């Protein structure tokens, strides 16, 4: 089960993921990101501080946007991951493809540099 909260800060769309992302709830994540892109946001921040678990399907969602974001010059930064979630990203090597910040402040700094 996942709950996604959206709010806008300094021109960036902040998606806060609350709960767990598995195969079925990954669809919601996909829809949320697609909506944000559809609304024309160029900066997307993913708040993972309340994300307890993410399965490979959830990671697949982030992965699937990498090229599209590159083409459309959309910057996405994830931040606030707990150790377990961060480990999942690291094992798959997604940390090398995505920009991951420690907290919101750092994430905002990173997104402006991209």
């Amino acid at each position, binding site marked *: 089960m996942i709950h996604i909260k959206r709010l806008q800060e300094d021109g960036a769309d902040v998606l806060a993921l609350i709960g767990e992302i598995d*195969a079925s709830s990954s669809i919601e994540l996909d829809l949320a990101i697609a909506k944000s892109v559809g609304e024309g946001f160029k900066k997307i921040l993913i708040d993972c501080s309340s994300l307890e678990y993410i399965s490979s399907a959830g*990671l697949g969602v982030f*992965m699937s946007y*990498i090229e599209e974001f590159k083409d459309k010059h959309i910057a996405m930064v994830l931040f606030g991951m707990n150790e377990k979630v961060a480990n999942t990203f690291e*094992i*798959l*090597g997604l940390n090398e493809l995505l920009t991951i910040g420690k907290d919101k402040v750092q994430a905002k700094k990173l997104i402006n540099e991209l």
Partner: protein
Amino acid sequence: MRTKAIIRLLFMVGVITWLALVFTDISIVLSTKSNIKSDIPSWLPNVLLNLFILALYYYYRLKLERDDILNFVDLLWRVFATGLVATVISLAIKLIENLLGSTKLTGYVVFIDLVYLINLGLMIGFLIMAFTAWKRLILYQKSKWLLRLWNFFEWGLLFTLIYNSFDVPFIEPLFISLLVLFVIIGLILSGNMKWVAYLNFRQKWTSLLLLLLTIFYLLYGLFTLNFLIESLKLQTELFTNYKVHIFVISLIIFVTLYSIFSFLVILFNLPTTSVFEQKLEEVVNFQRISQSIQTEQSEESVYNILLETSVSTVFADAAWLEIKSSNSSKLFNYKITDKEAYDIIAHLNSQNVKGVLDQGSDKTRNLSKHLSSLKGSRFRSILAFPIYVKGENIGTLALVKELAEGFNKEMTKIVSTFANQAGISIENFRLMEEALQNERYKEELKIAKTVQKSLLPEMLEQDQDFDIAAFSESADEVGGDYYDTLRINEKQVSLIIADVSGKGTTAAFHMSQMKGIFHSLAQYCIEPDEFMKRANQALIYCLERGSFISATFFIVNTETKKVHYSRAGHCPVLYYHSKDDTSEYFRDKGIALGMVRNKSYGSFIQSYEFNYKPGDIMLLYTDGITEAKNERGEEFGYERLAGILLELKSLLPKQIQEQLIGKLYEFSGSTNINDDYTTMIIKFK
């Protein structure tokens, strides 16, 4: 068979008693005429008449009881037929009398008495038949109270037979009061006309005719009897006069009253018959819609039944059903062309009618007034209803009539009920479809599971330099865990462990691709990083958006005692160093296959190597193991896994694997796994 015999016997008794009555009565009349004192007691004719009545009474009663299934019209028909026979016989006698002319015989008292007795017998037969039939009608849908009253009436009447049987002196007040009592009870009973409501229009007309003729026969019979009595009275006083017979008089009054009442009630019920019939049809139609789900094969059939039933119930001239799917709409029409329907829809849209046709409102509405401005359409009234499935508006039912102001509130209510019921039927239908789909999906999973199992190697590559064991168990939802071995040459063996993202048939499909890639690339003795690059290149075209495969590929060289490997996003290798009795995870860099879909993938992947020593153990696994959860939601985790390996280090790979899986089940607390458990263990010698 016994009742049949009894019925015949009763008839015989009736005939015999009647003949005896004729004989005794005539002899009494004769003797009085001749001023001779008769030997026959004067009470005998009365007793015989009563016996005759009793015999007929039970005769008709048993006869009608046997025909349990008679409907109301059949019953009336029987009464009518009896009356007809009686009247025809009576008329025939009259005809003979007329043919004989005014001879001496016709004026002879014995002849008149005979004719009178024949007529009386026929009349009583007719009356009792009618009485028995009316009983059936009155007691249709009886109440306890009604039954009691009827029994009192019937037994009372039979009791008067006893009273009349004896030569009790005629007491007028008693006679009058008894008669009044029976007439009153007869009147009360005559109020029971429930059966009339169940006749349809045609049956009512038939009943009216039959009743009219029955009344006519009654009047004719009474008139004939009266006439005969008058002529008899002129000559003698001592004949069996029915007019002092309470039973016969009460019967005549009751039968006539009920006949007239029934006639009038049916007559006044005629105009409302169609309403009753319509209500009945509604119920039947309603049932049809409810049952359609069990018998019909498709949603389309439900739609067609809805159209048909609603049209026939409200007497509409045509109807259509517009079913909306995600972005298109489909029209089911009934006695109306597509063009006509679309014309009306377009017209109402252009009039900016916010009704149900545009599905912007959920209210059932009579849109007739908007139709009047549409030129060239034959329809003048329209009624539209929304159809809901699971609270979602899936379409609109529109009924049209050529008549202006053709729909009333009542009709609106009925069809709205129909539409609701149809919604439920469709919903049930969809649920059933879903269940079937689920069943199919499960079947598919079973196939996928078999495929997945068959993709895993039956035998692992053996070598003198190491022992190897592998295990894979998948959950109900098939995952895509894969492991394999391939001997490159005498000194080199390649190993792979991989995990395909996603589940089900697609996962099994990607797994088979991975197997193909492994078997074609591994045999060329290429470096592990090169293997990953090529594998990635090959998979770009196979994996859909968001899918990827994590894998670790090894080449074990038994000559140099080195292992070359490359990790593409797969769980880090757990390695046990026998030299210093420690274990560690090889957290090397490398991203999963399919994540970067261009040549730059090469920059994310690297080859690593290490030397192995005897006793070293390499434990490969998929995330199903480290992410296995216990009842408290805790994960099995890396530390626990490493701890177990240290514990089991001295065992052979097969034993390690068995113990590890045993501990895993123990940890998760059930044999129902929710992910795939896959492990491959290599112990060097």
